[in-house]
Protein backbone atom coordinates (compact mmCIF):
# COMPACT_ATOMS: atom_id res chain seq x y z
CA UNK A 1 0.00 0.00 0.00
CA UNK A 2 1.23 3.43 -0.87
CA UNK A 3 1.75 6.14 1.65
CA UNK A 4 -1.63 7.77 2.01
CA UNK A 5 -0.67 11.30 0.95
CA UNK A 6 0.87 10.01 -2.30
CA UNK A 7 -2.28 8.06 -2.84
CA UNK A 8 -4.40 11.15 -2.27
CA UNK A 9 -2.34 13.05 -4.82
CA UNK A 10 -2.84 10.31 -7.39
CA UNK A 11 -6.58 10.21 -6.75
CA UNK A 12 -6.65 13.99 -7.13
CA UNK A 13 -4.75 13.77 -10.39
CA UNK A 14 -7.11 11.10 -11.67
CA UNK A 15 -10.23 13.12 -10.85
CA UNK A 16 -8.68 16.25 -12.37
CA UNK A 17 -7.73 14.37 -15.54
CA UNK A 18 -11.23 12.96 -15.86
CA UNK A 19 -12.86 16.35 -15.42
CA UNK A 20 -10.36 17.88 -17.83
CA UNK A 21 -11.39 15.21 -20.32
CA UNK A 22 -15.03 16.16 -19.89
CA UNK A 23 -14.22 19.83 -20.37
CA UNK A 24 -12.20 19.01 -23.43
CA UNK A 25 -15.17 17.16 -24.88
CA UNK A 26 -17.56 19.94 -24.00
CA UNK A 27 -15.49 22.86 -25.26
CA UNK A 28 -13.06 21.63 -27.87
CA UNK A 29 -15.07 18.82 -29.42
CA UNK A 30 -18.59 20.18 -29.55
CA UNK A 31 -18.00 23.89 -29.26
CA UNK A 32 -20.50 24.28 -26.51
CA UNK A 33 -22.31 27.49 -27.40
CA UNK A 34 -25.46 27.08 -25.38
CA UNK A 35 -24.09 29.33 -22.70
CA UNK A 36 -22.43 31.70 -25.06
CA UNK A 37 -25.25 31.70 -27.56
CA UNK A 38 -24.73 34.38 -30.13
CA UNK A 39 -27.24 37.17 -30.22
CA UNK A 40 -29.40 37.31 -33.28
CA UNK A 41 -32.79 37.98 -34.77
CA UNK A 42 -35.36 35.59 -36.20
CA UNK A 43 -36.84 35.80 -39.68
CA UNK A 44 -39.38 33.54 -41.34
CA UNK A 45 -39.49 32.13 -44.82
CA UNK A 46 -42.15 29.94 -46.44
CA UNK A 47 -41.10 27.22 -48.80
CA UNK A 48 -43.23 25.07 -51.01
CA UNK A 49 -40.90 22.28 -50.00
CA UNK A 50 -38.04 22.56 -47.55
CA UNK A 51 -36.57 19.16 -48.45
CA UNK A 52 -34.13 17.68 -45.97
CA UNK A 53 -33.66 20.87 -44.00
CA UNK A 54 -33.32 20.35 -40.23
CA UNK A 55 -33.21 22.46 -37.12
CA UNK A 56 -29.62 23.72 -36.69
CA UNK A 57 -28.88 23.47 -40.40
CA UNK A 58 -26.77 26.46 -41.40
CA UNK A 59 -28.01 29.64 -43.04
CA UNK A 60 -25.40 31.20 -45.26
CA UNK A 61 -24.89 34.16 -47.52
CA UNK A 62 -22.22 34.08 -50.22
CA UNK A 63 -20.97 30.84 -48.65
CA UNK A 64 -20.45 32.31 -45.17
CA UNK A 65 -22.47 30.98 -42.28
CA UNK A 66 -24.57 33.81 -40.91
CA UNK A 67 -27.08 31.90 -38.79
CA UNK A 68 -28.96 28.66 -38.32
CA UNK A 69 -32.45 27.20 -38.62
CA UNK A 70 -34.32 27.41 -35.35
CA UNK A 71 -37.68 25.88 -36.21
CA UNK A 72 -39.45 24.11 -39.06
CA UNK A 73 -43.20 23.62 -39.12
CA UNK A 74 -45.99 22.83 -41.54
CA UNK A 75 -48.74 25.36 -42.22
CA UNK A 76 -51.99 23.34 -42.68
CA UNK A 77 -53.76 26.21 -44.47
CA UNK A 78 -51.32 27.06 -47.20
CA UNK A 79 -49.62 23.63 -47.21
CA UNK A 80 -46.27 25.31 -46.99
CA UNK A 81 -43.23 24.68 -44.87
CA UNK A 82 -42.63 27.53 -42.42
CA UNK A 83 -38.93 27.85 -41.65
CA UNK A 84 -37.71 30.14 -38.91
CA UNK A 85 -34.08 31.04 -38.94
CA UNK A 86 -31.90 32.89 -36.54
CA UNK A 87 -29.45 35.30 -38.10
CA UNK A 88 -26.50 36.44 -35.99
CA UNK A 89 -26.90 40.06 -34.98
CA UNK A 90 -23.66 41.27 -36.54
CA UNK A 91 -25.24 40.60 -39.96
CA UNK A 92 -27.89 43.27 -39.58
CA UNK A 93 -27.76 44.81 -43.02
CA UNK A 94 -29.29 42.18 -45.26
CA UNK A 95 -31.83 43.73 -47.65
CA UNK A 96 -35.40 42.60 -46.95
CA UNK A 97 -36.02 41.54 -50.52
CA UNK A 98 -33.40 38.78 -50.24
CA UNK A 99 -34.11 35.42 -51.85
CA UNK A 100 -33.98 32.30 -49.66
CA UNK A 101 -33.12 29.03 -51.39
CA UNK A 102 -32.63 25.53 -50.09
CA UNK A 103 -29.41 24.09 -51.46
CA UNK A 104 -27.43 20.98 -50.93
CA UNK A 105 -23.76 21.13 -50.08
CA UNK A 106 -22.20 18.86 -52.67
CA UNK A 107 -23.98 15.85 -54.08
CA UNK A 108 -24.45 14.04 -50.79
CA UNK A 109 -23.93 16.86 -48.32
CA UNK A 110 -26.43 18.34 -45.93
CA UNK A 111 -28.99 20.89 -46.95
CA UNK A 112 -28.80 24.54 -46.00
CA UNK A 113 -30.55 27.82 -46.66
CA UNK A 114 -28.77 30.35 -48.78
CA UNK A 115 -29.76 34.02 -48.72
CA UNK A 116 -29.12 36.07 -51.84
CA UNK A 117 -29.39 39.79 -51.10
CA UNK A 118 -31.53 41.96 -53.34
CA UNK A 119 -31.42 45.72 -53.80
CA UNK A 120 -33.83 47.07 -51.22
CA UNK A 121 -32.67 49.74 -48.80
CA UNK A 122 -34.64 48.27 -45.91
CA UNK A 123 -33.00 45.54 -43.90
CA UNK A 124 -34.24 42.28 -42.45
CA UNK A 125 -35.06 42.58 -38.74
CA UNK A 126 -36.70 40.57 -35.97
CA UNK A 127 -39.96 39.08 -37.26
CA UNK A 128 -39.40 39.88 -40.94
CA UNK A 129 -40.74 37.61 -43.65
CA UNK A 130 -38.69 36.61 -46.62
CA UNK A 131 -41.07 36.75 -49.54
CA UNK A 132 -39.10 35.24 -52.38
CA UNK A 133 -38.18 31.64 -51.81
CA UNK A 134 -36.93 28.79 -53.89
CA UNK A 135 -37.72 25.30 -52.76
CA UNK A 136 -35.36 22.41 -52.41
CA UNK A 137 -34.68 20.48 -55.52
CA UNK A 138 -36.02 17.00 -55.06
CA UNK A 139 -33.76 14.76 -56.99
CA UNK A 140 -36.41 12.15 -57.82
CA UNK A 141 -38.75 14.82 -59.16
CA UNK A 142 -36.04 16.34 -61.30
CA UNK A 143 -35.08 12.98 -62.74
CA UNK A 144 -38.74 12.18 -63.38
CA UNK A 145 -39.24 15.44 -65.24
CA UNK A 146 -36.11 14.91 -67.27
CA UNK A 147 -37.19 11.44 -68.37
CA UNK A 148 -40.69 12.65 -69.18
CA UNK A 149 -39.31 15.45 -71.29
CA UNK A 150 -36.92 13.32 -73.24
CA UNK A 151 -39.67 10.81 -73.89
CA UNK A 152 -41.86 13.61 -75.33
CA UNK A 153 -39.06 14.83 -77.54
CA UNK A 154 -38.59 11.42 -79.07
CA UNK A 155 -42.14 11.25 -80.30
Amino acid at each position, binding site marked *: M*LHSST*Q*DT*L*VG*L*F*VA*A*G*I*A*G*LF*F*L*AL*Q*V*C*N*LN*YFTEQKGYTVTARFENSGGLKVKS*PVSAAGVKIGQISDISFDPKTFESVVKMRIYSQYNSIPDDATASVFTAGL*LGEQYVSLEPGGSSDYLKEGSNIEITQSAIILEKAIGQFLFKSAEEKK
Partner: protein
Amino acid sequence: MLELIQTLGKSTRAGFTKLGRGTYFLLQTLTGILEIVPRPRLLLNQMYSVGVLSCLIISISGLFVGMVLGLQGFYILSDFGAEETLGVMVAASLVRELGPVVSALLFAGRAGSALTAEIGLMKATEQLSGMEMMAVDPIKRIISPRFLAGVISMPLLAALFSAIGILGGQIVGCGLLGVDDGSYWSQMQSKIDFFDDIINGVIKSFVFGFVTTWIALFEGYDTIPTSEGVSRATTRTVVNSAFSILGLDFILTALMFGDD
Protein backbone atom coordinates in the same frame (compact mmCIF):
# COMPACT_ATOMS: atom_id res chain seq x y z
CA MET B 1 -37.56 -35.12 -21.52
CA LEU B 2 -39.16 -34.59 -18.16
CA GLU B 3 -35.69 -34.33 -16.70
CA LEU B 4 -34.78 -31.63 -19.19
CA ILE B 5 -37.81 -29.56 -18.24
CA GLN B 6 -37.00 -30.06 -14.58
CA THR B 7 -33.43 -28.91 -15.02
CA LEU B 8 -34.60 -25.95 -17.04
CA GLY B 9 -37.11 -25.01 -14.37
CA LYS B 10 -34.56 -25.37 -11.62
CA SER B 11 -31.95 -23.21 -13.31
CA THR B 12 -34.53 -20.57 -14.19
CA ARG B 13 -35.62 -20.47 -10.59
CA ALA B 14 -32.01 -20.29 -9.43
CA GLY B 15 -31.48 -17.39 -11.83
CA PHE B 16 -34.41 -15.47 -10.40
CA THR B 17 -33.30 -16.21 -6.84
CA LYS B 18 -29.89 -14.82 -7.65
CA LEU B 19 -31.39 -11.72 -9.23
CA GLY B 20 -33.48 -11.23 -6.11
CA ARG B 21 -30.47 -11.57 -3.82
CA GLY B 22 -28.56 -9.22 -6.09
CA THR B 23 -31.29 -6.60 -5.87
CA TYR B 24 -31.46 -6.87 -2.09
CA PHE B 25 -27.68 -6.56 -2.00
CA LEU B 26 -27.84 -3.46 -4.19
CA LEU B 27 -30.41 -1.83 -1.92
CA GLN B 28 -28.26 -2.52 1.13
CA THR B 29 -25.24 -1.12 -0.69
CA LEU B 30 -27.11 2.04 -1.63
CA THR B 31 -28.26 2.66 1.94
CA GLY B 32 -24.68 2.09 3.05
CA ILE B 33 -23.48 4.96 0.86
CA LEU B 34 -24.95 7.48 3.29
CA GLU B 35 -22.52 6.29 5.93
CA ILE B 36 -19.49 7.08 3.79
CA VAL B 37 -20.18 10.81 4.03
CA PRO B 38 -18.55 11.23 7.45
CA ARG B 39 -15.65 8.99 6.43
CA PRO B 40 -14.33 10.15 3.03
CA ARG B 41 -11.08 8.29 3.59
CA LEU B 42 -12.85 4.98 2.82
CA LEU B 43 -13.95 6.33 -0.55
CA LEU B 44 -10.58 7.84 -1.36
CA ASN B 45 -8.75 4.55 -0.82
CA GLN B 46 -11.13 2.82 -3.21
CA MET B 47 -10.98 5.61 -5.80
CA TYR B 48 -7.28 4.82 -5.89
CA SER B 49 -7.61 1.11 -6.50
CA VAL B 50 -10.63 1.35 -8.79
CA GLY B 51 -9.93 4.57 -10.68
CA VAL B 52 -6.26 5.46 -10.60
CA LEU B 53 -5.07 1.93 -11.27
CA SER B 54 -7.36 1.70 -14.32
CA CYS B 55 -6.06 4.98 -15.75
CA LEU B 56 -3.07 3.57 -17.58
CA ILE B 57 -4.91 0.84 -19.51
CA ILE B 58 -7.73 3.26 -20.34
CA SER B 59 -5.40 5.98 -21.63
CA ILE B 60 -3.28 3.69 -23.76
CA SER B 61 -6.27 1.87 -25.20
CA GLY B 62 -7.97 5.20 -25.90
CA LEU B 63 -4.95 6.44 -27.78
CA PHE B 64 -4.76 3.35 -29.96
CA VAL B 65 -8.49 3.17 -30.62
CA GLY B 66 -8.42 6.82 -31.70
CA MET B 67 -5.42 6.23 -33.95
CA VAL B 68 -7.08 3.23 -35.60
CA LEU B 69 -10.26 5.24 -36.13
CA GLY B 70 -8.16 7.97 -37.72
CA LEU B 71 -6.59 5.51 -40.16
CA GLN B 72 -9.71 3.57 -41.05
CA GLY B 73 -11.83 6.69 -41.28
CA PHE B 74 -9.34 8.38 -43.54
CA TYR B 75 -9.26 5.53 -46.05
CA ILE B 76 -13.04 5.29 -46.23
CA LEU B 77 -13.73 9.01 -46.27
CA SER B 78 -11.05 9.83 -48.84
CA ASP B 79 -12.95 7.63 -51.33
CA PHE B 80 -15.74 10.18 -51.16
CA GLY B 81 -13.40 13.12 -50.97
CA ALA B 82 -14.65 13.87 -47.50
CA GLU B 83 -11.43 13.68 -45.45
CA GLU B 84 -12.37 16.94 -43.76
CA THR B 85 -15.14 15.14 -41.88
CA LEU B 86 -12.61 12.76 -40.31
CA GLY B 87 -12.86 14.71 -37.04
CA VAL B 88 -16.61 14.23 -36.97
CA MET B 89 -16.32 10.53 -37.56
CA VAL B 90 -13.63 9.97 -34.94
CA ALA B 91 -15.34 12.13 -32.33
CA ALA B 92 -18.85 10.82 -32.92
CA SER B 93 -17.86 7.18 -32.76
CA LEU B 94 -15.75 7.77 -29.65
CA VAL B 95 -18.11 10.01 -27.73
CA ARG B 96 -21.28 8.09 -28.54
CA GLU B 97 -20.14 4.47 -28.58
CA LEU B 98 -16.55 3.44 -28.26
CA GLY B 99 -15.67 5.69 -25.35
CA PRO B 100 -18.35 4.44 -22.96
CA VAL B 101 -18.44 0.85 -24.22
CA VAL B 102 -14.76 0.03 -24.64
CA SER B 103 -13.74 1.77 -21.44
CA ALA B 104 -16.51 -0.07 -19.57
CA LEU B 105 -15.31 -3.39 -20.98
CA LEU B 106 -11.75 -2.57 -19.97
CA PHE B 107 -13.00 -1.43 -16.58
CA ALA B 108 -14.81 -4.74 -16.09
CA GLY B 109 -11.64 -6.61 -16.96
CA ARG B 110 -9.30 -4.50 -14.88
CA ALA B 111 -11.23 -3.19 -11.89
CA GLY B 112 -14.30 -5.46 -11.89
CA SER B 113 -12.40 -8.72 -11.78
CA ALA B 114 -10.07 -7.30 -9.12
CA LEU B 115 -13.05 -6.31 -6.98
CA THR B 116 -14.66 -9.75 -7.30
CA ALA B 117 -11.43 -11.50 -6.43
CA GLU B 118 -10.81 -9.20 -3.47
CA ILE B 119 -14.29 -9.56 -1.99
CA GLY B 120 -14.39 -13.28 -2.78
CA LEU B 121 -11.09 -13.86 -1.00
CA MET B 122 -12.28 -11.82 1.94
CA LYS B 123 -15.27 -14.12 2.14
CA ALA B 124 -13.22 -17.27 1.68
CA THR B 125 -10.84 -16.23 4.47
CA GLU B 126 -13.75 -15.43 6.80
CA GLN B 127 -12.89 -11.73 6.86
CA LEU B 128 -16.48 -10.72 6.07
CA SER B 129 -17.84 -13.12 8.64
CA GLY B 130 -15.26 -11.90 11.12
CA MET B 131 -16.34 -8.32 10.55
CA GLU B 132 -19.94 -9.24 11.18
CA MET B 133 -18.94 -10.85 14.46
CA MET B 134 -17.12 -7.64 15.36
CA ALA B 135 -20.47 -5.90 14.90
CA VAL B 136 -19.29 -4.15 11.71
CA ASP B 137 -21.58 -4.43 8.72
CA PRO B 138 -19.34 -5.57 5.86
CA ILE B 139 -21.70 -4.16 3.26
CA LYS B 140 -21.40 -0.67 4.68
CA ARG B 141 -17.73 -0.91 5.51
CA ILE B 142 -16.43 -2.82 2.49
CA ILE B 143 -18.97 -2.86 -0.31
CA SER B 144 -20.54 0.61 -0.36
CA PRO B 145 -17.28 2.60 -0.68
CA ARG B 146 -16.15 0.37 -3.52
CA PHE B 147 -19.50 0.76 -5.24
CA LEU B 148 -19.45 4.53 -5.02
CA ALA B 149 -15.85 4.64 -6.21
CA GLY B 150 -16.77 2.57 -9.27
CA VAL B 151 -19.78 4.69 -10.13
CA ILE B 152 -17.77 7.91 -9.86
CA SER B 153 -14.70 6.61 -11.68
CA MET B 154 -16.39 5.14 -14.73
CA PRO B 155 -17.62 8.39 -16.37
CA LEU B 156 -14.26 10.01 -15.66
CA LEU B 157 -12.42 7.10 -17.25
CA ALA B 158 -14.72 7.14 -20.27
CA ALA B 159 -14.19 10.89 -20.74
CA LEU B 160 -10.45 10.34 -20.52
CA PHE B 161 -10.71 7.56 -23.08
CA SER B 162 -12.68 9.66 -25.57
CA ALA B 163 -10.53 12.75 -25.14
CA ILE B 164 -7.29 10.84 -25.63
CA GLY B 165 -8.85 8.94 -28.54
CA ILE B 166 -9.81 12.16 -30.31
CA LEU B 167 -6.26 13.43 -29.89
CA GLY B 168 -4.98 10.10 -31.21
CA GLY B 169 -7.20 10.46 -34.29
CA GLN B 170 -5.85 13.93 -34.80
CA ILE B 171 -2.24 12.74 -34.55
CA VAL B 172 -2.82 10.14 -37.24
CA GLY B 173 -5.24 12.09 -39.42
CA CYS B 174 -3.56 15.49 -39.38
CA GLY B 175 -0.01 14.54 -38.49
CA LEU B 176 0.50 11.52 -40.73
CA LEU B 177 -2.19 11.59 -43.38
CA GLY B 178 -2.38 15.30 -44.06
CA VAL B 179 -5.96 16.15 -43.15
CA ASP B 180 -6.24 19.87 -42.45
CA ASP B 181 -5.97 20.54 -38.76
CA GLY B 182 -8.49 23.36 -38.82
CA SER B 183 -11.20 21.40 -40.59
CA TYR B 184 -10.62 18.38 -38.31
CA TRP B 185 -11.66 20.50 -35.35
CA SER B 186 -14.18 22.84 -36.94
CA GLN B 187 -16.15 20.08 -38.65
CA MET B 188 -16.16 18.23 -35.36
CA GLN B 189 -17.35 21.25 -33.45
CA SER B 190 -20.17 21.99 -35.84
CA LYS B 191 -21.50 18.43 -35.87
CA ILE B 192 -21.02 17.13 -32.31
CA ASP B 193 -23.81 18.27 -30.03
CA PHE B 194 -23.27 18.82 -26.35
CA PHE B 195 -26.50 17.24 -25.12
CA ASP B 196 -27.16 14.69 -27.84
CA ASP B 197 -23.66 13.32 -27.99
CA ILE B 198 -21.56 14.20 -25.00
CA ILE B 199 -24.11 14.15 -22.21
CA ASN B 200 -25.62 10.97 -23.60
CA GLY B 201 -22.17 9.41 -23.65
CA VAL B 202 -21.64 10.39 -20.03
CA ILE B 203 -25.03 8.93 -19.07
CA LYS B 204 -24.09 5.70 -20.81
CA SER B 205 -20.80 5.40 -18.99
CA PHE B 206 -22.51 6.16 -15.68
CA VAL B 207 -25.01 3.34 -16.29
CA PHE B 208 -22.22 0.97 -17.31
CA GLY B 209 -20.21 1.88 -14.23
CA PHE B 210 -23.20 1.28 -11.99
CA VAL B 211 -23.97 -2.13 -13.49
CA THR B 212 -20.39 -3.34 -13.79
CA THR B 213 -19.51 -2.42 -10.23
CA TRP B 214 -22.71 -3.95 -8.95
CA ILE B 215 -22.05 -7.22 -10.78
CA ALA B 216 -18.43 -7.33 -9.64
CA LEU B 217 -19.22 -6.70 -6.00
CA PHE B 218 -22.20 -9.04 -5.89
CA GLU B 219 -20.33 -11.89 -7.57
CA GLY B 220 -17.60 -11.47 -4.99
CA TYR B 221 -20.01 -11.28 -2.09
CA ASP B 222 -22.10 -14.21 -3.35
CA THR B 223 -19.14 -16.43 -4.19
CA ILE B 224 -18.74 -19.97 -2.91
CA PRO B 225 -15.96 -19.43 -0.36
CA THR B 226 -13.31 -21.66 -1.88
CA SER B 227 -10.47 -20.85 -4.25
CA GLU B 228 -12.36 -22.52 -7.09
CA GLY B 229 -15.47 -20.52 -6.25
CA VAL B 230 -13.53 -17.26 -6.34
CA SER B 231 -11.94 -17.99 -9.70
CA ARG B 232 -15.32 -18.89 -11.17
CA ALA B 233 -16.90 -15.76 -9.76
CA THR B 234 -14.15 -13.66 -11.34
CA THR B 235 -14.83 -15.19 -14.73
CA ARG B 236 -18.56 -14.66 -14.28
CA THR B 237 -17.97 -11.00 -13.46
CA VAL B 238 -16.16 -10.36 -16.71
CA VAL B 239 -18.61 -12.35 -18.82
CA ASN B 240 -21.78 -10.99 -17.23
CA SER B 241 -20.46 -7.44 -17.26
CA ALA B 242 -19.64 -7.69 -20.95
CA PHE B 243 -23.12 -9.00 -21.74
CA SER B 244 -24.80 -6.34 -19.66
CA ILE B 245 -22.70 -3.54 -21.09
CA LEU B 246 -23.39 -4.51 -24.69
CA GLY B 247 -27.07 -5.25 -24.10
CA LEU B 248 -27.63 -2.01 -22.22
CA ASP B 249 -25.70 -0.14 -24.87
CA PHE B 250 -28.21 -1.27 -27.46
CA ILE B 251 -31.16 -0.22 -25.31
CA LEU B 252 -29.63 3.12 -24.37
CA THR B 253 -28.62 3.87 -27.94
CA ALA B 254 -32.14 3.11 -29.15
CA LEU B 255 -33.57 5.41 -26.48
CA MET B 256 -31.11 8.26 -26.98
CA PHE B 257 -30.36 8.43 -30.65
CA GLY B 258 -33.50 6.76 -31.95
CA ASP B 259 -35.56 9.76 -32.97
CA ASP B 260 -33.23 12.06 -34.77
